[in-house]
Structure formats: structure tokens, C-alpha cells
């Protein structure tokens, strides 16, 4: 076997498997930050344990091939188990499950794939006769190539199962050619299995959705779109979450009419998202109204139009409608037009990605693009009869954020709350709105005089207003996105399990317990290590800190990039690729050093501090886009260089190939667990950056202290 193939293949598989499993996991488990964090951290944990425990497994070429085979077979098996997970949990399709099953699935599904990949890193180092640098360089190269292939070829053109199948076919063929003991029958058997995976993607989804009838499915860069048919009704799903059903007048009417009725004679509206669910045709009931509709994913509209009746399709071809396939926030910032209405028709702020439409900064952009007295509105899932503490926190954060931008804010009570904001007075008087409905002859079913009297009874309007105003005044900001944490807490209350208590506890614990105490314990660990004076600690600790820092920095960079520049799939993919390419070049640099010294680790660590300091200084809405690419490239470069230098020094002491790699992944695991789902929403991006800077500074001080010990 050519020695360079296995490490390259390892890097290629590790990245592609991780990305595809994350996408598929999100598609089954609601795609929010918590479930995403659970799978990513499980993946990193098993990879870390695999590489640390690999020293217990004796190396042979045969075992190396077997470890590849285990990972390659386990991956499609994990996808199959994931697809039928609802049978294991015992729930219906569309029925929610708690975080405990999700957590167990994330651990169980990533174990058979990520653990062997961790072991393979050590086996590859044995194969290269201890040349760990070479393994890391080739692995980084494999990951970089994989990033390009997965993000620019597989995801845009193939489904997750099809991608998994093709990766399997390619990898097995490569292994077969490279292997010395070739068994043709086993290759044919495996290829047949993978071909079945390719073909049975849609049929298996149909089984998943039984007793409902799935009629179409499509994986897009933004998620898994699915259409279900129940008699005359079509329901559209993204990542197993119901986006809308057609016909569903209740939802489509309330999404636009409460805003439009405030000024029914106005003539320019911007509708961000949700047009295909009927909101567009509802808006067109106002005969003079021109609507600009912005939808980020063209496939959502194309997919919907395949199944919608002609009547609904007509609204997309109306001369009063213009469709823009663009990120809503980017569109609003760039447009020179002003609107009488800006209507957000998006899901609740359940992820950082969506939360950026509910921040003060976004509201400011909206205000700027509204004409005098223009109306801004959005909808949030709520409860009709009782506002829980958790719901109150979410609604209050949105209300007070709006209040900082608009002098007039009103909230429509009901199972869904419609937030209306303007610089002019707004009305929630049932009689007044009813008169307008009659005057404009709007043939509404739900936003109609017969239901408004009850929905907008002063008793209910005041009850909601009081509950919201009693809530805590916290603004939801781009760089401190608190509303998506409140939304996560609210989501968890449905399950009434340990997850609810934990999240509620974290929300009360505050910065002292969640950031200061862990940092203090870290400093204690550093002091302990300084006193212990073992040289290896000075080589290895920076790797764990690097793992934690890189994943946290990546998350911060991705969230802020999306916030400032929108979720532009290809550019986000390019960001990942920049990081991986930096990792590859950094590791080349580390290997190119003729002699490695401990002081080089100190300089690289200082490099991390410079990068964090610059980020802290420059991270704001006016940060040029190129800085993000450069920042992630630099992060990768420093990480790659540090990994090689630290390991080269450590391996002079002890031939434990997997420990450095394991600690790097373990640090990443800690970062993945806490940063995106907890620290960022609770404390904001800049605070997390500050603490990363502190963490790295203490690490640097530790290294400087260690200089004497190491040089002894």
C-alpha cells in the first residue's frame, strides 16, 4: 500500500463523515444549536478517546485496513439507524422527543465511526514509522480536499445518503487497489450494499413517515425539504420541522393581515420568507399592494410550486410581485427602496442563524427601510391562555429589543403572537380592524370580525401586555444573541426532564459560575502542572487549549459572519475550507522546521493571543468580509503549526502517538459542548472572545514559567 494514501483518506473521511452525519442528524432532530452541539461534541469525544486508547491496540497493516473498513461500514449503518431512530425511541414521525434520547443517539451513532477514525490516526503514525508530522499534513490535506468536494459537489448536487454511498464506493475502491490482500467478493458485496443505500434514500424516508404519505424529498444546502400529502392537503417540512401546510388559512392570514390592516391603503410591502405558504396570496388581496418577496433558498419555492394548486402559483407570477432569492437581511441592507410594511415570516429564533433577524441591529436596518409610519411585524409561537416564565423571557427580550428601536410596539395575543412595531400609533381594537376588513371586502376566515372580537378582547390584549412587560428587559443583540437561548429553554420545557432543569439552572447560574469558576480551575490546573514540573505537560497542554480555542473561534466566526453577511452557503463553505487549508499549510510549516524548540510553542501561543486580540478589536458589523477568511486561515495555520511542533517535542520524550491528537480533540469536545448552545447566547460573542483571550494568556504565562523546567 502506498504510505501516503491512508492518512489522506483518513482526513478525507473524517471531515466528510462529520459533515454528512451532522446534516442528517439535524434533519432528524430539529436542527437547533443544542442537538448540533450534542452530536459534534460526541463525535469529538469518541475521536479523542480513539486516539488516546489506540496505544492499547497493537498495530499491523491488516488492523489498519480493518479499522478503515469498520469506519466505512459503520457510517452508512449509522445513517440507517438514524433514519429509523423513531422506531427505536417509539415515537411517531413529527412527534417530538426529549434531549436524553437525542443525547444517547448522538453518542451511539458517532461511536462506531469516530472512534475508529481516532485509532486510525495512531495506526497511520505507526505506518509512517512514527513520522506524526507527515500523517497530520496528509490528514489535513485530505480534509481540505474533502471540504471542497463535500461543500461544492456533494451537498449541492446529491442527497446525504447518496453522498455517503459515493464516498463509500470511492474509499473502498481505493483501499482495494492499495491493499495487498485483495478479496474481490467482499468488495462486490460492499459495493452492492452501498448501491442500495444510494437507491433506497427516498423509499426509506417514505417508511420513516408512515402512516403519513411522503411524496417528495430533497436535500438542499439549507436542509432536508420534504412534502407530505394528507388527502387534499400538502405539508412541507424542513429538517423534519413543519414549515407550512397548504391550505392553512389560519397561519397565512395572520402572518400578513394584522400588519396590513394597520394601513390597508399603503402600497409597498416586503415579505421575508414564507410566501409559498399562502402569505403572498393573502397580501395580494389588497388590490393596490406591490410585494417584494425575499426567500433565501430558491429550492423552497421551486419545491413548493411542484405541489401547489394553480391558484396559488398565480400569485408568484403576478405583476405586483417581485421575487428575490437572497438572504433577507442582506437584501434589506442593500436595497435602496423603502417599504410601508416589512413582514418577517420566518421560524422562531431557535438558532443563531435565524436569531439575527430578531436583533436590535436588524430592527434598526428595518426601521431605516420603512417609510414614515411604516409597519414592521413578525410572528412568534406562543400560548393562548397562559404565559410561562420561559415564554415570558423570550417574548420580553423581543419586545424590549423592539422598543429600543420603535416608539410604538403592540403584540397580538393568541397561540401565535404577532409583534407589530412602528413610529406611528398602532391599533389592536377589534372594531376598528373589523371595519377595515369590511371596507376592503377582505374575504378572510381567521382574521375576520367574527374571530377578532374574541382574539383581541381588551382582557386578553392587556393580559399579554402585562405579562410581557413584567419580564426582564434584556436586548437581543447581534453579538449577544440572548433570544435564541430563551427559545432553547422554552423548547426544553416541553419535555419536563433533566434538560429543562439544566437549562433553567444555567440561565440562572451567571457568568461567575459558568466562566469565572472554570477559568479559575484552569489556572489551578496550570499551577499544579508548574509545580509538578513534568516536561510533557508543557508540550501537551497547549494542544488541548488550541482544540478548545479553534472550535470556539470557528463558531464565533461563523455566527458573526452569518449575522453580518447573511447565510451564503458557498461563502460559509469557503470559510471552512480556509481553515482547513490553513491547517494544512501550518502543519507543513511545522514539519519544515529543521529543529524544534520549546520557545517556538511560546511564539505560536502568542500568535493565538494576537489573533484573538485583533478579533476582539475588529469584530463588528463593519468588519470587511476578507478578515473572516484571513482570520480562519490564520487560526488553522497556527493550529497546524502548534500541533506539529508540540507533538515533535513530546514524541522525543515518549512514543505515545495518539495523546496529542486526543487532547486536541478533547479540547474541541469541551468547546463544542458549551460554546454555541450556552456561552454565546448567554454571554455574547465578545465576552466569549474575551475569556478565550484570558484562557490563552494564562496558557502563555504557564509556558513562559515552564521555559526553565523544559530547558533543564
Amino acid at each position, binding site marked *: 500500500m502506498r504510505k501516503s494514501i491512508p492518512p489522506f483518506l483518513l482526513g478525507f473521511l473524517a471531515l466528510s463523515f462529520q459533515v454528512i452525519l451532522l446534516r442528517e442528524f439535524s434533519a432528524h432532530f430539529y436542527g437547533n444549536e443544542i442537538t448540533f452541539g450534542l452530536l459534534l461534541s460526541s463525535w469529538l469525544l469518541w475521536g479523542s478517546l480513539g486516539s488516546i486508547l489506540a496505544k492499547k491496540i497493537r498495530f499491523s497493516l491488516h488492523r489498519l485496513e480493518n479499522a478503515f473498513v469498520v469506519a466505512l461500514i459503520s457510517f452508512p449503518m449509522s445513517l440507517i439507524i438514524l433514519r429509523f431512530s423513531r422506531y427505536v425511541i417509539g415515537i411517531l414521525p413529527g412527534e417530538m422527543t426529549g434531549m436524553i434520547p437525542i443525547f444517547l443517539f448522538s453518542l451511539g451513532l458517532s461511536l462506531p465511526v469516530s472512534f475508529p477514525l481516532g485509532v486510525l490516526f495512531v495506526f497511520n503514525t505507526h505506518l509512517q514509522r512514527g513520522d506524526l508530522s507527515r500523517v497530520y499534513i496528509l490528514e489535513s490535506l485530505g480534509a481540505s480536499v474533502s471540504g471542497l468536494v463535500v461543500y461544492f459537489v456533494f451537498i449541492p448536487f446529491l442527497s446525504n445518503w447518496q453522498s455517503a454511498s459515493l464516498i463509500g464506493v470511492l474509499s473502498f475502491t481505493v483501499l482495494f487497489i492499495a491493499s495487498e490482500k485483495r478479496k474481490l467478493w467482499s468488495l462486490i458485496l460492499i459495493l452492492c450494499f452501498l448501491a442500495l443505500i444510494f437507491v433506497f434514500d427516498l423509499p426509506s424516508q417514505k417508511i420513516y413517515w408512515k402512516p403519513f404519505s411522503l411524496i417528495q424529498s430533497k436535500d438542499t444546502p439549507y436542509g432536508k425539504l420534504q412534502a407530505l400529502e*394528507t388527502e387534499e392537503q400538502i405539508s412541507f417540512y424542513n429538517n423534519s420541522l413543519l414549515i407550512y401546510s397548504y391550505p392553512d388559512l389560519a397561519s397565512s392570514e395572520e402572518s400578513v393581515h394584522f400588519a396590513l390592516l394597520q394601513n390597508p391603503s399603503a402600497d409597498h410591502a416586503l415579505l421575508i420568507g414564507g410566501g409559498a405558504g399562502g402569505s403572498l396570496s393573502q397580501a395580494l388581496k389588497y388590490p393596490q399592494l406591490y410585494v417584494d418577496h425575499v426567500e433565501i433558498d430558491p429550492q423552497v419555492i421551486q419545491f413548493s410550486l411542484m405541489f401547489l394548486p394553480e391558484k396559488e402559483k398565480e400569485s408568484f407570477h403576478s405583476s405586483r410581485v417581485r421575487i428575490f432569492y437572497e438572504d433577507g437581511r442582506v437584501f434589506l441592507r442593500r436595497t435602496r427602496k423603502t417599504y410601508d410594511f416589512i413582514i418577517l415570516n420566518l421560524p422562531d429564533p431557535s438558532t443563531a442563524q435565524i436569531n439575527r433577524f430578531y436583533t436590535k441591529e436588524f430592527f434598526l436596518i428595518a426601521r431605516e427601510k420603512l417609510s414614515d409610519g411604516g409597519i414592521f411585524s413578525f410572528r412568534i409561537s406562543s*400560548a393562548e391562555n397562559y404565559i410561562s416564565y420561559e415564554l415570558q423571557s423570550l417574548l420580553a427580550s423581543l419586545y424590549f429589543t423592539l422598543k429600543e428601536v420603535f416608539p410604538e410596539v403592540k403584540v397580538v395575543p393568541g397561540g401565535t403572537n404577532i409583534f407589530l412595531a412602528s413610529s406611528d400609533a398602532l391599533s389592536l381594537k377589534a372594531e376598528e380592524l373589523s371595519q377595515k376588513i369590511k371596507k376592503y371586502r377582505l374575504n378572510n376566515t381567521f382574521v375576520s370580525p367574527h374571530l377578532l372580537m374574541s382574539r383581541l378582547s381588551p382582557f386578553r390584549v392587556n393580559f399579554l401586555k402585562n405579562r410581557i412587560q413584567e419580564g426582564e428587559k434584556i436586548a437581543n443583540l447581534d453579538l449577544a444573541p440572548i433570544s435564541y437561548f430563551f427559545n432553547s429553554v422554552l423548547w426544553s420545557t416541553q419535555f419536563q426532564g433533566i434538560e429543562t432543569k439544566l437549562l433553567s439552572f444555567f440561565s440562572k447560574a451567571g457568568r461567575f459560575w459558568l466562566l469565572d469558576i472554570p477559568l479559575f480551575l484552569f489556572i489551578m490546573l496550570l499551577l*499544579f502542572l508548574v509545580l509538578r514540573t513534568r516536561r510533557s505537560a508543557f508540550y501537551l497542554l497547549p494542544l488541548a487549549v488550541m482544540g478548545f480555542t479553534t472550535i470556539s473561534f470557528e463558531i464565533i466566526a461563523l455566527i458573526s459572519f452569518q449575522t453580518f453577511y447573511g447565510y451564503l452557503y458557498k461563502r460559509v463553505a469557503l470559510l471552512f475550507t480556509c481553515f482547513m487549508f490553513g491547517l494544512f499549510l501550518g502543519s507543513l510549516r511545522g514539519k519544515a522546521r529543521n529543529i524544534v524548540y520549546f520557545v517556538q510553542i511560546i511564539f505560536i501561543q502568542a500568535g493565538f493571543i494576537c489573533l484573538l486580540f485583533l478579533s476582539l478589536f475588529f469584530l463588528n458589523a463593519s468588519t470587511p468580509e476578507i478578515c473572516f477568511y484571513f482570520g480562519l486561515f490564520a487560526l488553522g495555520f497556527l493550529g497546524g503549526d502548534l500541533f506539529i511542533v508540540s507533538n515533535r517535542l513530546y514524541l522525543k520524550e515518549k512514543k505515545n502517538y495518539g495523546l496529542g491528537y486526543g487532547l486536541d480533540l478533547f479540547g474541541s469536545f469541551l468547546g463544542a459542548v458549551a460554546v454555541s448552545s450556552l456561552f454565546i447566547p448567554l454571554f455574547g460573542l465578545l465576552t466569549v472572545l474575551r475569556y478565550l483571550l484570558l484562557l490563552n494568556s494564562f496558557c502563555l504565562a504557564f509556558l513562559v514559567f515552564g521555559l526553565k523546567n523544559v530547558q533543564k
Partner: protein
Amino acid sequence: MNRRQFFKTTGAAGITACSGFSSLLMDMYTFAETTNLSKKEAVFYKKLEDREIECTLCPRFCRLGDKERGYCGVRENIGGSYYSLVYGKACAVHIDPIEKKPFFHFHPRSPALSLASAGCNVNCRFCQNWDISQVRPEQIQHFDFPPDKVVQFALKNSCPVIAYTYSEPVVFYEYMYDTSILARKQNIKNVVVTGGHINPEPLAKLMEVVDGIKVDLKSFNEGFYSRYVRGELHPVLEAIKMIARSKIWLEIVYLVIPSLNDSPEEIKTMSRWILKEVGPDVPLHFSRFYPMYLMKNLPPTPLSTLERAHNIAVQEGIRFVYIGNIPGHKYENTFCPNCKNTIIQRKGFSVIKIDLDNRRCKHCQHIIPGVWS
């Protein structure tokens, strides 16, 4: 600092940090004791040996030791006696049209003071009010609203009806019972919106003080009840039969969930049972399911499914069959079973017209069952 000193210092700091953290954790679990719950002795329970009790209010028959709570989470054994913790503790109070409950044959156009406390004795995966029904009283915000204040509030707001609704009124039985007695004295009617999980004895006593009961029949299948309701069908059917035999006004709501309880066979069997055990005059509402709570991602019920259920029930002989949650649908209206004319026209929660004259159809004088004035 030598190594020993280091360990001493860090050890002390560690212990301090851990104790602080654990006190914070304790806070998480002891909030119950800081809240103001009521302590009203329950009416229906049996005292057993060793300070144990058996709750006899609902078919669960919870057997509880000292300091244990029933499945509903709002009744607790304290020292061998059983107490309701939510007596006079309201968490949701609104004034709704009675058509929203829905009651279609009971004082149409009446505003109903609607009242709820926390807790429920089942756990429907599609509950609309899960945030009050699936929690313990100390987890939510409630306020003191004793029976006399409830009645005063109803009078002040001109509500001729008090509805015990939203969560499960059976679990705040004593509160509902005492309020109903006071309300009656003021000529205010009492209606109960329940899942029907109640034992015969407490139901009989309740029927002495209330005027109307709406039962949510969630399916006609024991498997559905056990899987999606965490309850049983049989006691609900017994409760319906008992109410039907009394003078209390009964209406039945059947929430149609696509693919789970919408098969024509199930609807037909249920309709036949209603016809046999309750009679043809009970209003039967087929309501549209809208994705909620743990079933948030199921598709809503298509209109044709509801119309099919309606037609089956009518074909089986039930006279007053309605479709709910579809405002403006023609089957929101009441038709005279004799002359087929529209006698009550509704749209959403509004009643557009009532063609009744002293309980009789204005067109043909046929008596329309209900509590009309």
C-alpha cells in the same frame, strides 16, 4: 509555596467552590418550598395504614405515602391526609365566548368566565395547554382567586357562565365544586370542560352543582388512549354514559388527528356507541387538529377528513354534528333535524342568528335539545 501548601490552598478553594455550586444546585430543586400553595383537604380519598392514602377522585387510584403527590402533581399526602394544593389558585383566567369551549347548545352568545389551575390526570401528546396542564403548581405563576372572588368577578364582568377549562378541572375538584355552589346562588351557570377521567362517585356529586359538561373524547381506541393520552378509554365512556343519564347538559368533542384516530371504522363505531348509550341528540363536534406540544410537526387535519367524519356520524343517526376550528364552514351551523333549515348560524365564535322560539325551531316548531335561556 511547596507542593503540600499548594494542595492545601487549592483543596480549600475547591471545597468552597463546590459548596457554592451545590447550594446553587439545591436552589434548583427546593423552589417548591418557597412558593405559596394552598392546603385544602381533598374530598375523595381513603386513609390507609402507615399514613398512606388512596386517591379515589380519578381512575388512576394513586396510592401515596407521606409527602408523595398524585400523578396530577397538585394533590399531596401530608402526614396521612390528602390535600389539594391548588384550591383558590388560578393560573389562567379569561373571558371567552361559550362557543369557544365549545358549547353550541348551551346559552349561546354568553361570555364565559374561564378558569384553570395547574395540573392534569392524563398526558396528551397534543395538549393545547401543556404549559399549565403538564406542570406542578409551583412551577408556574398563579394567584389567589378564591371561590367568592371568582363569583364576584363573573358578576362584575357580566358573565352568566363560569367555565372550568384549559387544564383538567377534575384535578382542582374542590375549588370547582365550592365555586359552583356560590355561583349558583348568584344565578350563574357552571360548565366543565373535561377529558372525562373521573370516578362515578365524585362525578355524581359534581353533577349536583354544575349545569353542563363537555367531554373531550380523544379517540375510540384503548391503544390510542394508552399511547398518546396516557390514560384509559373505558372510564371516559362510563363518565359520558353517567352524564347522559343525568339532567346535566352534555356535549362531546372529538379532536380528529390525521392517521391516528380518523379511520372511518373508528368514527363509525364511536357514532354507533354514542347513538346507543347517549342518544341521537347529543351535540358531537369534530374538531380540526392543529399541531401542538409534542405533536408540533404532525400535519393539521385536512378538511375532507373532518367532512367525512361528519357524514359518517350523521349517517349513523346523530342529529347535531359539527365541524370545529374551521370558521365559516357550513357545519358550524345548527340545522333543524326536522325541516333541515338553519336555526343557529355561526361564524367562528360569533353567533350570527338564532331562529329559535322557546326551544323550538321557528320554521317547524320542532323542539331543539339544549339549554337555551
